[in-house]
């Protein structure tokens, strides 16, 4: 693993009314790694990604991407800089065909629609959507396909860093394995650094190089997957202290 820092987050905080969703979270994402971001419900994982990608404006703290301060910038600006994301709840373009949706992502780096369509087709095949599905409307495909198309749409913007927000939520076990293979391929063959927010432990422990654990808006611990899984603090955060 190279040590070039891609994203540096310093003391990021975000509150909603009286609830502190993120409390002085600092972390680094290094180039080329797959970073798992885990934590119980309400730990602040999605809020963290929303603050980094500009969906929310953080109350304090700084987000530095490739040496540039991008704190509180608009989402489309951050996407242009090279951070893409997928969504916990799928956000498909229902009345556009599969290929059109991915082309819309590819158009970020080119004005040429035909070129973008070509790129979109390559990316769709890369994530495993067959050509026969390209002209199908977004409203007529299955959940697993939605996840893959959302992923393809994000990859089409040619990001350097890609956040996957609960990409396997709601899928069957064998579908989870399909996604795991695709995610690993995206990391290795395309060289995209990944931040994977996840609840499904089998998935996230399997693919991550490193894991950070958030709990009640704070950074609890970080380390290799095996270390984190044994950490008493993590077990306590998920299961509580007293035996039931």
């Amino acid at each position: 693993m190279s040590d070039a820092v891609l994203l540096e987050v310093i003391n990021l905080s975000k509150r909603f009314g009286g609830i502190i969703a993120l409390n002085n979270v600092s972390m680094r994402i290094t180039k080329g790694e797959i970073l798992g971001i885990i934590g119980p419900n309400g730990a602040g994982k999605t809020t963290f990604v929303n603050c980094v990608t500009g969906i929310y404006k953080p109350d304090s703290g700084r987000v530095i991407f490739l040496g540039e301060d991008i704190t509180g910038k608009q989402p489309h600006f951050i996407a242009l800089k090279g951070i893409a994301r997928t969504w916990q709840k799928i956000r498909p373009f229902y009345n556009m065909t599969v290929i059109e949706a991915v082309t819309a992502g590819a158009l970020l780096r080119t004005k040429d629609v035909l070129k973008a369509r070509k790129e979109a087709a390559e990316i769709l095949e890369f994530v495993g959507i067959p050509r026969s599905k390209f002209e199908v409307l977004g409203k007529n495909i299955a959940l697993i396909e939605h996840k893959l198309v959302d992923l393809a749409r994000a990859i089409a913007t040619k990001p350097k860093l890609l956040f996957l927000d609960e990409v396997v939520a709601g899928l069957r076990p064998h579908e989870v394995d399909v996604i795991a293979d695709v995610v690993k391929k995206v990391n290795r063959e395309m060289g995209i650094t990944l931040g994977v927010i996840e609840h499904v432990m089998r998935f996230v422990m399997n693919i991550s190089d490193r894991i950070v654990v958030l709990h009640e808006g704070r950074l609890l611990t970080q380390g290799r997957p095996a270390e984190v899984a044994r950490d008493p603090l993590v077990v306590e955060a998920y299961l509580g202290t007293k035996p039931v």
Partner: protein
Amino acid sequence: MVAGASIPFLVGFNQYYILLALQSVIVASIALAWNIIGGYAGQLDLASFAYIGLGGILATMLMMEYNITPWAGMFLGAGISAALAFVIGYPLFRFGIRGVWYALSTAALVVILHEVSIMVLGPFDYYIPLLEGWYYLRFRTWENLYYFSLIVLAFVISLNLYISRSKVGYYLKAIREDEVAAEAVGIDIRKYKLLALMTYASILGFVGYIYIVSQRTFSYNTFSGPQSVYIAIIGIVGGLGSVSGVFTAAIILKIVEEYLRGYLGGALPGLHLLLFGVLLITVGILRPEGLSSLTDTLVKKVKTRIWGGVRE
């Protein structure tokens, strides 16, 4: 286009039918302009007659008061309408006004212009003076204006087709489907929505003069809320973002409305509106995605016949 151009010959230069054709073509142009903001970008805009009134009344008043040719007036009207669209659109999009709130805000724009025009010009109601010739773009018979409006319609259709195949079209459709997701793939949603709104407004500002000439009169009631809603209805019944669907809906609805009014308007006032409503509900139940589901299949079939397959 050829079919459109031959209509005056087919109806034997019957002025009533040519005027009906003219009005249908104007409505189709307006509805297809609406298709850019409403169909592609998905913003339920209810202010079409604010821009038509502003551009049209400006061009007509300049002609009546200062004898300035409407050729200049129409372009000026397009510019002023685009400027108004910017003044309205910038804050709306800046503060993320969308959905029903966008619709209400734009509906309010028509009412505001209606009132403001009365304040500025008094309760005005003009019949256009009998000026004739290409300089005034107004003639004793309707053919020439009809041909001119056909050219305008051809331009609006080409613009629609160009947009749907360009980067702008992909971006506007993405915004229509999901603004948050669109922004996350790098689309500057404010910029593109504003671009769509201003394009739409400038077309309407240009068409305004032709509309007023075809109506022969203009007044503060040119800023018409119901008419603006009617345009949005055509766009929705036709199918959001479908050129063939919106065009078909505009022509059919205009003719059906005219027919019902002509045959039933005298028997029981308002009956034609009732039947018109029933027709709209029927379309809503049977074809909720709009007429485009029919017309698109038809267009595809024709293309397959001609080229032996739909090309990419």
